[in-house]
């Protein structure tokens, strides 16, 4: 069968049979196709499995290619599986993910320092959901605390090819906003600064 199958059909079959994203080298190894041939076939499949045309879509995530159901059909799939979509993450959880994604691998204490609040509960929730994992230890810190890093499941959930597939931290805050922060700080007297931490507690209480 494989001798007669078209490249797109071969790739389609391999992706269909895999529950995880398949990296290109694995695709080449499984199908025996050349890289150029595979890329052309993947483009062909992307057209066929576009969100506008199909209930199944071809997406790139976590360093590989994956066939997944179209989010437009998610409710029907969830009814079939009799399972609810996981509850959305809290604001604190998003902040912890952002810390680990941009500053990681990093420790719980470092995450808490950046956020200005204890983040253990949020970290625990993310570990349970498989979006964070402990990968190694910080041997230079006292007690060698565990280092947290984002997982492939996180990249898949965020639709990211890899951790570089996010805008850089520096581009997320524009100069106008930074100038406003500096201006507010400069206008505050030292007395007014006393006791203030990295967050604005009054805004959250």
């Amino acid at each position: 069968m494989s001798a007669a199958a078209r490249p797109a059909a071969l790739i389609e079959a391999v992706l269909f049979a895999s529950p995880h994203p398949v990296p290109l080298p694995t695709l080449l190894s499984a199908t025996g196709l050349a890289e150029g041939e595979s890329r052309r076939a993947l483009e062909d499949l992307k057209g066929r499995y576009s969100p506008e045309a199909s209930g199944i879509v071809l997406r790139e995530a976590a360093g590989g290619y994956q066939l997944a159901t179209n989010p437009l059909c998610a409710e029907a799939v969830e009814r079939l599986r009799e399972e609810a979509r996981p509850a959305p993450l809290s604001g604190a959880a998003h902040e912890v993910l952002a810390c680990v994604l941009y500053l990681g691998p990093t420790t719980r204490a470092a995450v808490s320092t950046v956020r200005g609040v204890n983040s253990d509960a949020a970290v625990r929730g993310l570990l349970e959901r498989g979006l964070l994992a402990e990968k190694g230890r910080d041997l230079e810190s006292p007690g060698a605390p565990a280092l947290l890093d984002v997982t492939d499941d996180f990249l898949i959930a965020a639709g990211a090819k890899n951790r570089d597939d996010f805008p850089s931290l520096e581009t997320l805050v524009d100069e106008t906003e930074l100038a406003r922060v500096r201006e507010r700080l400069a206008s505050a007297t030292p007395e007014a600064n006393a006791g203030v931490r990295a967050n604005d507690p009054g805004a959250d209480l």
Partner: protein
Amino acid sequence: MSDEASGAGPQADPRANPRARALEGFTVELDVYSGPYEGLLALILRDEVEIFEVPLRELVALYADENPSGTSTLERDTDFVDSATSLVLLKGRALAFDPEGEEDPEEPLSPRELERRLVGYLKIKRAAELLNERLRENAGFYPSAHFLPPRPGKLRVDRKKLAAAAKRAFSRTAEPETRHLGPITVTVGELAALIRSSLVEANGNPVRFEDLVRGMDRLRAAVAFTAALSLASEGSLTLRQTEPFGPLTLDPAARTK
């Protein structure tokens, strides 16, 4: 810190003040939690819900909108104010969190350090908003879910090995070789009788096992030891050995009693 937070006194620590049951019927609907208020307090104290995420103002509004019946309003209000004050204190402490424990709480941060922290946090906050959007956009993709079965490995059967294995599995276990053992000329019962008579002759005094088996061959000595164990287990005597590998003494049961 807001007036709300700064108004909390040290006596309001919820860890030292378990909640009364007057608030039993009060339920809350928040983004982070939905259910009995007391459950929310328990989760906060167990660090399973981050106090930082609990909107206290909303909590107070929910309580104000509630109209309980059949409970003492004064007692209920007092309990709520007490617990809400504790939450304010807890939140205030969380916001002044110092994970390294190196900062002097009396010493204000330098403007430069404050700016560094604020800018760093602002970037992370914006990154969190971006992640929120991306995760929302990418929700609802379900993979094909065809989990591959375990690889069976190489399946090559050697007929001779299979036949040998079957022979081993289905044949009777061979009798162990006993020709090297001498004929058994004594029984446990005989030596138990010997021990009993020795104890009677000793007139209630202990008998040394060494004296009992003096002149016996190894087989008889071993059977005598088995007989002594058997008599000890039925309570006819007590075996005593004060130190490892020390002399073994047989005490008649009446003496030990």
